[in-house]
C-alpha cells in the first residue's frame, strides 16, 4: 500500500477541491464576519454582564468536555480506535458519585441540630465521592478493554469500533435495568450548593460565578496537568508513548504492551469518572443516558483538537464549550442551534486541517 500510485480520478477530485475549498472558506468567513458585525456593532444586543455569564458557562462545560476528550485521545493514540463506550464509563462514574453522596447523607452525625456526614465533613465527602467514582470508572474502562476490545486486537479496525458501539448500548441498558430509568437528583454538601457563588457587579447586574462551576473547572485543569505530567515525566508515560509510536518495536524494547494498554484504559476511565462526578455535582441530574451527549461532544472536541494529541483535546474541549455558549449569541441565532454550530465548526476545521487544530500529520504506519 505504501507506494500505490494515486488513481487518476482521485487527482481530478483534488484538482476540483483546490478551488472549492478556498471559495467555501471565504464564503463562510464572510458570513461569520457579517453576522458578528451586525450583532456586536450594529445591534449591540448583549452587554458585558451577559458575555461574562456566557464565558463562565462555556469554560465550565468546556473543562468537562476536555476531561472526557482526553480519554478518547489517549485510547486513540495507542490503539487507533474510537472508544465509543467512553461516555458510558463517565455515566457509571456519575452514578457512583450519586450513590456515595446518598450514603453519606444518610449517616447522621448528630441529631440536634440535625447534621449528616456529608455536611459535617464536606471535604472528606467530596474526596470519597471522587475516589469511588474514579475507581468505578477506571475499573469499568479496564474491564471494557479486557472483554470487548482485547479479543479483537488483531481484527480489522472496523470490528473493535462496532464492538465499542455495542458496549455503549449494553452499558446504557444495563444501567437502566440496575438503577431504574428515573432521573436522580444529586445532593451536594451544603458548601457546594448549586446556584450560589461569588457575585460580581458588571453593568449594574449581578453576575454569579457558581462555586460548583469554579470547583469543576479548577479540578479539571488540575487533573489535565496531572495527566500531562504522567505522560511526559513517568516511566508509564514513556511506555505509553512508545506503544503509541510503534507497538512491535516497543515490545522488542521490553515494554509489556498489553499491560500498558490496560493502564491507559485505567487512566482514561479514571478521568471520565472524575468528569462524571463533576457532572453530577454541577448539573445535579444523573440518569442512564447522561453520558451519551457529553460523550459525543467530547469526541467532537477530541477530533477538533487533533485526535491522539493531548493538548489538542484540552484545547478542543474548551473551544467547543465556548463555541456552544457564546457562538449563538455572537452570531445572533437561536440557542437551540448550538449543536449545529459546534458541528459546523468541526466540518470547517476538518476541511482546512483534516488532522485537527493541533494534530500532526500521521505517519504511514499509523494510517
Amino acid at each position, binding site marked *: 500500500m505504501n507506494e500505490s500510485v494515486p488513481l487518476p480520478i482521485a487527482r481530478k477530485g483534488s484538482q476540483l477541491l483546490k478551488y472549492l475549498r478556498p471559495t467555501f472558506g471565504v464564503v463562510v468567513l464572510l458570513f461569520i464576519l457579517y453576522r458578528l458585525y451586525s450583532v456586536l456593532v450594529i445591534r449591540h444586543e448583549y452587554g458585558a454582564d451577559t458575555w461574562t455569564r*456566557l464565558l463562565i*458557562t462555556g469554560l465550565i462545560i468546556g473543562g468537562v468536555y476536555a476531561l472526557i476528550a482526553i480519554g478518547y485521545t489517549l485510547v486513540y493514540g495507542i490503539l487507533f480506535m474510537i472508544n465509543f463506550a467512553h461516555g458510558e464509563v463517565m455515566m457509571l462514574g456519575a452514578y457512583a458519585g450519586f450513590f456515595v453522596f446518598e450514603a453519606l447523607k444518610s449517616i447522621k452525625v448528630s441529631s440536634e441540630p440535625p447534621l449528616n456526614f456529608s455536611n459535617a465533613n464536606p471535604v472528606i465527602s467530596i474526596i470519597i465521592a471522587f475516589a469511588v467514582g474514579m475507581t468505578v470508572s477506571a475499573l469499568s474502562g479496564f474491564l471494557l478493554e479486557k472483554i470487548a476490545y482485547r479479543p479483537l486486537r488483531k481484527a480489522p479496525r472496523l470490528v473493535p469500533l462496532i464492538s465499542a458501539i455495542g458496549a455503549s448500548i449494553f452499558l446504557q441498558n444495563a444501567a437502566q435495568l440496575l438503577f431504574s430509568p428515573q432521573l436522580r437528583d444529586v445532593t451536594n454538601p451544603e458548601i457546594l450548593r448549586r446556584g450560589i457563588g461569588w457575585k460580581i457587579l458588571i453593568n449594574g447586574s449581578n453576575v454569579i460565578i457558581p462555586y460548583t462551576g469554579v470547583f469543576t473547572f479548577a479540578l479539571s485543569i488540575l487533573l489535565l496537568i496531572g495527566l500531562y505530567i504522567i505522560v511526559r515525566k513517568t516511566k508509564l508515560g514513556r511506555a505509553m508513548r512508545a506503544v503509541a509510536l510503534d507497538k512491535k518495536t516497543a515490545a522488542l524494547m521490553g515494554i509489556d504492551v498489553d499491560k500498558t494498554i490496560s493502564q491507559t484504559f485505567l487512566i482514561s476511565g479514571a478521568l471520565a469518572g472524575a468528569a462524571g462526578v463533576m457532572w453530577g455535582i454541577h448539573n445535579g441530574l444523573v440518569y442512564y443516558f447522561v453520558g451519551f451527549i457529553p460523550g459525543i461532544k467530547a469526541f467532537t472536541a477530541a477530533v477538533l483538537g487533533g485526535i491522539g494529541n493531548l493538548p489538542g483535546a484540552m484545547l478542543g474541549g474548551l473551544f467547543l464549550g465556548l463555541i456552544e455558549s457564546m457562538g449563538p449569541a455572537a452570531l445572533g441565532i437561536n440557542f437551540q442551534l448550538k449543536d449545529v454550530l459546534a458541528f459546523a465548526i468541526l466540518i470547517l476545521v476538518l476541511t482546512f486541517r483534516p488532522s485537527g487544530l493541533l494534530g500532526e500529520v500521521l505517519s504511514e504506519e499509523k494510517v
Partner: protein
Amino acid sequence: MKAMKLLVVLTVLAMLFTACAPAATPTAAVKTEAPAVAPVDEVPAVCASDAFGCAVFAPGEVVKLGMGAPMTGGDSAFGLDISQGAFLAAKDAGDFNGVTFEVVAEDDGGSPEGGAAVANKFAADPAVVAIPGHIFSGATAAAMPIYEKAGFPMLSPSATNPALTTKGSPVFNRIAFTDAIQGAFAANYLFEKLGVKKLALVHDGQDYGKGLVEVVAKEFAALGGEVVATEAITPKETDFTAVLSALASKAPEAVYFGGYTTEGAILANQMKQTGLENAVFFGCDGTYGADFLERTGPNGEGAFAVSLTPPNTEAKLVFDAAYEAAYGSKPGTLSPFSWNGYDVTAALISMVKSVAVVGGDGKVYVPRGALVAAVRGLKDHVGISGTFTCQENGECNASGPLFVVVKDGAWVPAP
C-alpha cells in the same frame, strides 16, 4: 452460496411478515371464520356490517384498553399517575356478561417513535378495543393514523396540542382542555393579574411546548404586552445557563415555559444564577407536580403552573381515598391528570358496554366501527373532573385551567 443467502433473506422476510400480519387478521378472522364455526344466528348481524368487524370475548376473558404513556424517564410521573387512575376505573367497571375490563399501560417514552411502536403493538392485539391515551401530544399524533386503520377510538386524558383535533381524525377525542385555551388564559393571567409587560418565551421544541408558546406569544401581543425573546432548548440537556443568560440581557419580568417538568425544574433552578432571579417562572400543566417541587427546592418558590384538580365532589373524594389506599400518594401530586385518567377510562368502558352485543353463543361481541362512532357521540358523561360532551371534531371539554403557585414548598391555588 448465493442460493443459501437468498433463502436466508426470504426466511427473514417471511418471519417479518408473519410478525406484522396479526395487525390485520383479528377483524378478518372474525368475519370469515366465526360464521363457519357457529350457526349463523349466534353471531350478531352488526358484526358483518361493521366496517372494522367485531372483537370477540368468551366469558371469563378480558377486554383490554391500551394506554400508551411515558412509563420511564424524566416524565414518567405522568404515565404512572394517569395509568394508576385508569386502573382504578377498570376495577370499578366490574364485569359485563362475564367479561372484565383491564387497562394495559405500555411505555411509549412520550416520544413520537415510541407512540407509533406502542400503537402497532396494540393494533396487533385482538383483545384491545379502545385507547385511553396517548399521554403526550407528540406520541398521540404519531399513533393516530395507526388507530384509524385499526378502528380503535381514542380518548386522551392529557394530549393538549391544538392541531390534534384539526386533522379530521374520526378516532381521536380528548377531555383535556387544549393548549389554545390554556395559552390564552395564561397570557391573560400574566398580563392582567401579574402585571407583566415584558415576557420571554422558552419551549422545548416539541409539539406540546412549541404549540403552547406560539399561542401565548400571539395572545400576549394582542393584549398589548411585549414578547422580548423566544428561545428553544434541547430536551434531555442539563445546562441551560447560556440561553438563560441571553434572555436575562432582555430584562424580562417573567419567563413563560412550554414543556415538561424535567427541563422546567432545571430552568427554574438556573434562572437564579443567570441574572433572572427576579423574573417569574411561569410554567404550564406539563411542569406541575411533586417532582418540580423536589428538584427546585427553594429555587421553585413563586413559580406558576397549571393544575387540573377538580372541585371536591363526592365522586372525587371517593376516588381520592381509593387512589391513596392503592398507591400511597394523593392523586394530583405526581401529575395533574390523575382524575382525567380515571374519567377517560370510565367513559370508554361505558361506551364499550353500550355498543357490545351478546351473541347466541354467550360470547360478547364489540363492533369496532360502532364503538368509534359511540365515543365521538359521547354526551353528558359525568366524570370526576367535569361533564363531557364530545363535539364533532373530538373536543370533549372547554373549561379553563386553574393556575397554581409554589408557596412554602407546596402548590397552592394562585390568587
